[in-house]
C-alpha cells in the first residue's frame, strides 16, 4: 500500500475529491494494480496514443469500442489514465450492470470505479467535472464473433444523450487487438436465455477450462488511440438534441472504425 501511495501520488492527489457516490474504494484499486500493470505492460503490451488530448480538468466523455469477452479495454483505459505521468485522472466507467445478479461481483466493480448507466448518474458526474468512459456497443460488443473482429456493432446513441445535453466534449477511443485477445467462436443465445445472461460466448477457454483459467486470453499486441474530440453545437430543442446525439454517436462510431482500419493497415504493411 505504501508503495502504491508513493507511486501514484499525483493520481491520489487528483482523485481525492472525486465522486464516490457508488462506493469507489482506492484500496481495492491498489490491490488490483499489480495485476493491471502486468496486463498492460507485459501481457498485452498496450501502446496508448493521444492521451495528451484529454483536458487536465473538467468534464469529458470517452467513447470506445469494446471486445474480448470481458471489459478489458475499460480496465486498460483505467490503468493508462491512473498511471499517466502528465495527466493522471480518475475515470468513471459507465456500463449496464443490472444483469449482474452476484452482489460481490457487482460491488467489486463499483469499488473499482464502475457506475451503473443512467442519465441522472452521468449528469451528476459531468456536473462535478469528472471524466466518464462509455462503451456504447454494450453486451453485443463483448460477444462479437471472431469473424466480425475489428468491425464495430451499432452504437447505442441514447447513451450519448446525457453528454450531448450537457455539451461535454466526446473523445472517441479506438482499441485494436482486444478482439483477437479472446477469439469468440460463437454466442449461444439459447443457453444465455436459459441462464438469464445477456450473452453466452464460447471461446477456446471459456466453458471448458476450470474457473480462473477459462477467463484467460491470448497475449496479443494492443494499440489504443484517443482521437480528437467531436465538436458539436448544443441546442435547447429536444428534437434537435436527439438528432445531434444520434449524429455524434454515428460519427464517433465511424471515427473509431476508420482509426481501426488505419491501424490495421499500418500493422499489415509493417509485417508484410
Amino acid at each position, binding site marked *: 500500500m505504501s508503495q502504491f501511495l508513493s507511486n501514484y501520488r499525483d493520481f491520489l492527489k487528483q482523485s481525492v475529491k472525486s465522486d464516490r457516490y457508488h462506493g469507489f474504494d482506492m484500496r481495492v484499486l491498489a490491490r488490483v494494480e499489480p495485476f493491471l500493470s502486468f496486463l498492460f505492460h507485459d501481457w498485452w503490451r498496450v501502446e496508448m496514443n493521444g492521451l495528451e488530448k484529454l483536458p487536465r480538468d473538467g468534464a469529458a466523455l470517452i467513447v470506445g469500442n469494446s471486445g474480448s469477452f470481458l471489459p478489458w479495454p475499460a480496465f486498460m483505459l483505467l490503468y493508462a489514465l491512473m498511471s499517466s505521468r502528465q495527466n493522471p485522472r480518475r475515470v468513471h466507467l459507465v456500463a449496464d450492470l443490472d444483469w449482474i445478479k452476484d452482489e460481490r461481483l457487482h460491488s467489486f466493480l463499483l469499488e473499482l470505479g464502475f457506475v451503473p448507466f443512467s442519465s441522472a448518474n452521468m449528469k451528476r458526474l459531468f456536473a462535478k467535472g469528472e471524466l466518464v468512459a462509455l462503451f456504447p456497443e454494450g453486451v453485443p460488443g463483448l460477444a462479437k464473433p471472431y469473424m466480425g473482429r475489428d468491425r464495430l456493432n451499432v452504437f447505442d446513441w441514447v447513451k450519448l444523450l446525457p453528454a450531448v445535453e450537457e455539451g461535454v466534449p466526446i473523445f472517441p477511443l479506438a482499441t485494436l487487438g482486444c478482439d483477437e485477445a479472446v477469439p469468440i467462436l460463437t454466442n449461444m*443465445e439459447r443457453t444465455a436465455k436459459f441462464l438469464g445472461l445477456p450473452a453466452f460466448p464460447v471461446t477456446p477457454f471459456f466453458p471448458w477450462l476450470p474457473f480462473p483459467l477459462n477467463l484467460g486470453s491470448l497475449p496479443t499486441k494492443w494499440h489504443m488511440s484517443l482521437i480528437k474530440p467531436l465538436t458539436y453545437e448544443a441546442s435547447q430543442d429536444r428534437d434537435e438534441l436527439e438528432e445531434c446525439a444520434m449524429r455524434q454517436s454515428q460519427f464517433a462510431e465511424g471515427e473509431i472504425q476508420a482509426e481501426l482500419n488505419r491501424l490495421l493497415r499500418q500493422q*499489415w504493411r509493417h509485417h508484410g
Partner: protein
Amino acid sequence: MKASLTRLFTEDPLARLARGNPAFVKRYESEPDPFGFSLETYARWEPFFRFLFEDYFKVEVRGIENIPADGPGILVGNHSGLLPLDGAMISMAMTGQHRAPRRIRYLVTDWFFSLPGLADWVKETGQVRATLDNARKLLEMGELVGIYPEGIRGVGKPFRERYRVLDFHPGFVQLALATGTPLIPVATLGGDEIYPELTNLKSVANFLKMPFFPVTLTFPWLPFPLMLIPLPVRWMIHVHKPIKLDYPPEKASDRKLVLKLAREIQYEIQDDLNKMLRRRRFFFTGGAAEKLLDTEKEPNNNP
C-alpha cells in the same frame, strides 16, 4: 436454351435491347452524347453484364427506388474488386430494376484512357474521364454521375483489407455543394471477394505502368481469359436515401465542412457494410434472402 443462344449471336443487339428494355432505348437513342456514349456498344455488352448480374453474382439490390427518375445526382460508393465490376453491377440494377431506367456516368481515372483498345470501350459504355469540368458538365446535363472517392487505391485492396473503406477524397462533396446536387451513398458487398488478392507487386506495377499488379489465386498464372474469371460470390447492393446538402454553394471552399461531410458519408457506408457482413452467413450462398432483407432485427443482440 439453344434457340436463345443462337438468337443471342444472330439478333441485332440494338433490336434486342429495344425488345428487352424499351424505355432505356427510347430515352437515349436520339440523344447525341458529347462524351462518346454509344447505345450500340452498350447493347452489345449488355447481355454479358446482365448474365453476371442475374445468374453469376445473383446481385440482391435494396433501395434502388431511392435514385431519382430525373435530374442530376451523384452516386458515391465503396470501390472493390480488381476489375471494377461494382460500377457495372449498379448500372445493371439501374437499367433493369428501376421504374425509369437510366445510365450512370462513372468518372474513370486517366489510366484507362492510356490503353488504346480499352479507352474507346470505356467511353462508349458511358464512362467519362475524371475531371471537374466533365463532372460539372454532366450534372448540368442532368445525368447521374458515379464517383468512387477511394479512387484506384480502393480497387487494389488485398483480401484481408476487404470491406475496410479507405478515407474518402472530399472532392465529391465540393462538387455536390457547388452544384447543389443530392448525394446518394451506395454500399456494395461482394465485390472485394470476387478476386481474392494475395499481394500487390508494386515494382512490377511500376515497371508496367499499371496502378497495381495483383497476385490472386488465378491471376498471372492461368492463360488469358481464365485468369479473369471471378468467384461466384453473392452480391448485395444497398442504395441509401439521397442526401440533400442544405448549404449555399460558397461553402464548397470551406475545407473543414467539406471534409466533415465526406467523412460522414464514408462512415455511413462503412457502417452499412459492417451491418450487411454481420447478417451474411456465408459468402457463396449469402444466407436466407428474407433474413438479409429485414433491416430491423439484428442477430446476436440483446435478448
